[in-house]
């Protein structure tokens, strides 16, 4: 909605900005696609969300280093949610349907079956509640701090810490059983 970001962009000369954008795209393209895919369960939707995220970044201008990753993941996350909403705009959802419809992410069983190469640990990760799996991926796959994850997901920092703790405990226990 906001077409540009103020001062930092204005003070940059165009080639620097383009170079910066190129570096950011190169750095975050795959991580964002991976993240978006986990949210949407659909490669095309994930790519669309990521493309859109970068197009918005082009309009936003140069971000500080510390803000870049949270901004990208946050915008990407919102785009994924928008896409999911657009996909099913007018569907009445009864309670009965709500109970049987899968969460928007990839179906855990299908995911596990398709990825025979996936380790036991990753299969167990896919079975965690969606939000636990999401923050664990942000932490261990995308190396974000609790604070950054809170910024991306709109959860509080202590909530993020709790979710990661519970998720890790669950995974450790399950890993120990096998």
């Amino acid at each position, binding site marked *: 909605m906001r077409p*540009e970001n103020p001062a930092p962009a204005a003070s940059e000369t165009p080639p620097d900005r383009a170079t910066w954008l190129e570096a950011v795209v190169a750095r975050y393209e795959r991580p964002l696609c991976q993240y978006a895919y986990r949210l949407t369960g659909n490669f095309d939707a994930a*790519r669309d969300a990521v493309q859109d995220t970068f197009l918005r*970044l082009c309009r936003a201008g140069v971000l500080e280093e510390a803000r870049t990753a949270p901004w990208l993941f946050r915008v990407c996350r919102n785009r994924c949610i928008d896409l999911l909403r657009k996909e099913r705009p007018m569907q009445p959802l009864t309670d009965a349907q709500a109970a049987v419809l899968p969460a928007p992410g990839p179906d855990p069983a299908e995911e596990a079956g398709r990825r025979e190469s996936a380790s036991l640990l990753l299969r167990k990760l896919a079975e965690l509640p969606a939000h636990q799996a999401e923050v664990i991926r942000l932490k261990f796959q995308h190396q974000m701090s609790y604070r950054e994850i809170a910024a991306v997901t709109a959860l509080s920092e202590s909530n993020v810490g709790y979710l990661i703790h519970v998720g890790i405990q669950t995974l450790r226990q399950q890993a120990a059983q096998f």
Partner: protein
Amino acid sequence: MKPSDEVQLTAYALGEGTPAERAAVAARLRTDPAAQAAVDEIRAFAAQLATELQGEPDIGLTDDQRRRIREASARPAGRLVRFPWRRLTGFAAVAAVVTLVFGGTLWHAAKQLLDDRFAKSREASIACEMVEVDEQQLDELLAPAERPDMVDVVTPPDLDWDMAPPPQVEDFCAAPAASAVAELNVASDAISPIVMKGLAPGAMANRASRGRAASLGSYGGRWGLYSESMPPANAESYAPIQGNTFKQVANEPLSTFSIDVDTASYANIRRFLRAGQMPPPDAVRVEEMVNYFPYDYAPPKGQTPFAVHVESAACPWAPDHALVRIALKGKSLDAERRPPCNLVFLIDVSGSMDEPNKLPLVKKSIQLLARQLDARDRVTLAVYAGAAGLVLPPTPASDLATIDAAVENLRAGGSTAGGAGIRLAYDAARQSFLPDGNNRVVLCTDGDFNVGIVDSEELAGFIADRAKQGIFLTVLGFGMGNYKDDRLETLSNKGNGNYAYVDSFSEARKVLAEQAAGTLFAIAKDVKLQIEFNPAQVSSYRLVGYENRLLAKEDFNDDKKDAGELGAGHAVTAFYEVVPVGAESAPGVDPLKYQPAAKEPTAPRERANDNPEWLTVKLRYKLPQADRSEKIEVPFVGAARPFADASTDFRFAAGVATAGLMLRGDPSVMDLGFDDVAAWAAAAVGADPGGHRREFLGLLRDAAVLSP
């Protein structure tokens, strides 16, 4: 080991925590080998997890997508234009604001009572709201169906954080108006950075979204403030809205629309923003946002049920244009002279209502409303779910014990058959019909009519038919998700009624206590506005909002055409963005090839008149029991005036309208940021008795953080 200690150990093992927290854990590890072992295990496991996750196959963009991004990045960043105060004051020809106000007597006693009660209950209600948020805050964002068993453990640390009253609102309002203006002056300079001098710490959150020096901490914490759950993405439905475009006065001198006093869209937008998500543009009805706020319009004098106030000033997002505000104020009712009420509450008790912010809130709302009534009034309760039934026969409102008991006994369960329930409620209303009274069905639902009569047309026809017989409909929408915005609004419109979205106890109090008279007592129905613009003064105009309330010009004098109802004491505000003659206008169209030249948009239809009036507001309305309409005409001469000189109410309402246009993605306001709007709205908060305007400032800050 306490669960919170374990969480802290995990945080420590992963390198998280403040230096003080880390030092405390480190000290403990020196004396606690078990804890040290746990940390080591977590670290080993984390390393394993990270390694395996790195090995996961990934995807990238397509070459085509990469090319598009490269092209976009080669274009220079957008022009930097902020609210141009300097320019604005220079445009003398531009300014003027229109306020039409319809006034009358106040329902004094009730209002006084409510104000007192409101003041007393404010603190309690804040706590109450926070509890509701608290119950929501643990919902995961993406998969609301799954809820982990962790509620007991995690709440204490979060509560401290989340329940702290948001200091930003107060701080921000406390920022002196002068500094806000000074800042905007700087902002209008395209090159120099925006300096944050004089702004309260809370305002930092806004700045973070602009890439300013704000630390991650200030905005990371900000997002933690409201942790309501994200609404389910796919269960809500909104009718598409096409924004109004500019009309050439030479072609279309008349603009006609029905009034709308609904406010549901604002409450719904608030829910989205608090959940950390921008609302979908089609959920944003600008007029409902503007009309959400009480304004201090003078009530009507004499016998007319309305006062009309017209005011104009420079348009804040287009300084060459003027913003004209048309305000109607309905007369208020005397507590003694108000008509008796025959209220039939029709309550959705289907399974979907079984949530803390639905049926329990309905119960509180009904009990609240019953306390505004007295022995003259009748209350009936009907429920619908799999089957419909009457749970409380018509009962004098003074018998609160009976009413409360019936309300408390309501239970949710079963599926929804809205149609059958509505028939039952209208039948009950007809049986206890009060010929001189206010006969009304109050539908309380989350809108999920998915069983039984689903034919919207049939249902709407039925409701319109009963409205003609004198039974009106008020719709109260409850809860989040499963929210059928368009359907509820259609129903209430057909029933000559109003529609409010209740998402918290404080909202219930606003709709049912603060504004009970307006919600329950109609002073006029089929209220239509028609504005005639003078081509000698105004070249083009557009109506801001009211997209789904537009009428054909012929409908204005057609008493068979339904329009909105106005409640006692209610006010209605509409803005026109007006392009004065001489200012750069929207591009016209080519002259017509097959029509006489008189139809040409650029040529005045007749010899230019020298009338200084910009426009005439024409208003038609019917008294509640009347079949024939009456008309009021108010001419308005625009005056040159900078936006900053406009009345407080004008400036605040203009800020709300601007934010609404931004949420709709309207291109005309793309150069503004939400924090700009917050700055000028903050300077126009005024007395703000209900705290609604301050709350709005908080939402603007949320929007500023969320908008990329």
